[in-house]
C-alpha cells in the first residue's frame, strides 16, 4: 500500500510528467490560457491516463508477452489506447451527455498525446504490475492536472499584466513554464524509487 502511495507521489511530483519528464507539453501550452478549459482538460487527461495504463498493461500481458512481440509495443499501445478512448467517448455521448459536455472535445484531443503513450511505455519499462500501472497513471494524471491548473491560473493573470512587447504571449508563457520546472526540481530526491 505504501508502495502504491509512493508511486502516486513519485509520478505526480518528483517525476512530474510535464515539468520534469517534458511529456504532454502540447496541451500544457495549448489549453492553459483559460482556467475552465484547463479544468476540463485535466479531467479528460486523468481519465485517459488511467485508462491507457490499464489498457496497455492488458495488451502487454495478454498479447505481446505470450507472442514474444514486445518490439511491437509502441504500435500496439497506440492502437489499443485510441480504440479505448474513442469507444469511451461514444459511450459517454450516449449515456451521460453532461459528462460528455465537460470532457467531450478534450478526449479525442489527447488520445495519442505523448503523455498518454509515455505512461504506457514507462509502465512497461519499470515492469509495473496491474495495480502499480493504474496508480502510476493516476499519479501522472494528478501531476499533469496540478501543473496545468496552476499554469492556467498564472496565464490568466499574465494576460492582464504589463509585459514588454517582445516577451508578450508565448514567450512569457514559456519563461513561466521554465520557472515552474525549476520549482519542481525541488521535489527531486524526496523519494527514491
Amino acid at each position, binding site marked *: 500500500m505504501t508502495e502504491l502511495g509512493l508511486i502516486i507521489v513519485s509520478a505526480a511530483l518528483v517525476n512530474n510528467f510535464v515539468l520534469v519528464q517534458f511529456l504532454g507539453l502540447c496541451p500544457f501550452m495549448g489549453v492553459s490560457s483559460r482556467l475552465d478549459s484547463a479544468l476540463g482538460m485535466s479531467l479528460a487527461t486523468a481519465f485517459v491516463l488511467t485508462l491507457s495504463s490499464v489498457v496497455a498493461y492488458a495488451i502487454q500481458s495478454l*498479447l505481446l508477452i505470450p507472442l*514474444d*512481440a514486445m518490439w*511491437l509495443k509502441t504500435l500496439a499501445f497506440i*492502437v*489499443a489506447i485510441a480504440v479505448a478512448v474513442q*469507444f469511451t467517448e461514444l459511450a459517454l*455521448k*450516449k*449515456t451521460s451527455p453532461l459528462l460528455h459536455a465537460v470532457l467531450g472535445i478534450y478526449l479525442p484531443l489527447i488520445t495519442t498525446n505523448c503523455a498518454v503513450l509515455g505512461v504506457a511505455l514507462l509502465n512497461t519499462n519499470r515492469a509495473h504490475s496491474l495495480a502499480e500501472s493504474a496508480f502510476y497513471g493516476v499519479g501522472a494524471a494528478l501531476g499533469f492536472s496540478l501543473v496545468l491548473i496552476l499554469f492556467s491560473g498564472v496565464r490568466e493573470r499574465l494576460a492582464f499584466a504589463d509585459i514588454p512587447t517582445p516577451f508578450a504571449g508565448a514567450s512569457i508563457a514559456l519563461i513561466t513554464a521554465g520557472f515552474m520546472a525549476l520549482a519542481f526540481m525541488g521535489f527531486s530526491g524526496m523519494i527514491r524509487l
Partner: protein
Amino acid sequence: MSANWLNLVLGALALTGLTFAGGILLSFAVRHFRVDGNPLVDSIDAILPQTQCGQCGHPGCRPYAEAIAGGELINRCPPGGQDTVDRLAELLGVDSLPLDADPETAAIDQVALIIEEDCIGCTKCIQACPVDAILGAAKLMHTVLPDLCTGCDLCIAPCPVDCIEMVPRTMAPNTWTPLAPEIISSDRTTTGVALHV
C-alpha cells in the same frame, strides 16, 4: 532464422488482429451508441416559448432551435421576450442581444380580440392560430380565449374583414399590486403580481 521469421509473422498477425478487433468494436459502438439529432437543439427548443408563431422567420420553434444551433441570431423570438434571449445567451455562452422586435409592441403584453359583430365566421383565423386559442365554427361567430392567446398576431393577416385587433391583455383583479402599500393600511396585506405595463 526460422524462429525469427515466425516471431515476425506472429507479431504482424497479432497487430493486424488487434487493429481489426478495434475497428469492429468501434463500428459496433458507432451504431449502438448513436445519438439521434443534436442534443443542443433540444436544450434550445426547451427554452423557446413553443408558440409556433413563426415571427422569427422559421415555421416553428423547433426549426428556429435548429437554426440557432446552426448559428442564427438568438434575438428573433418576440413571444419569448428579452428573458428568452438572455437564457439562450447563457445556454450558448454568447453575449446577450437586445430583442429584435418593435420595442413598443414587444413591451406590451397583447392579445388578439375579435370584433364579434363584424365576424363572418370564415374560420381562417382558426386555421392560422398556432396555439388553438380561437373558438368558433363555419358561419358562426369566433372568439379568442385570452388565457391561451400568446399575442403572436398571426391571425390578423388572414382575416378577410379585418375584424381582429391587438389589445393589451386585461388583468384579472387579483393580479393588481398596490402602488404604495406603505401609505394605505388596508393595502398592506394585499399580495399579487406586478402589473404588466
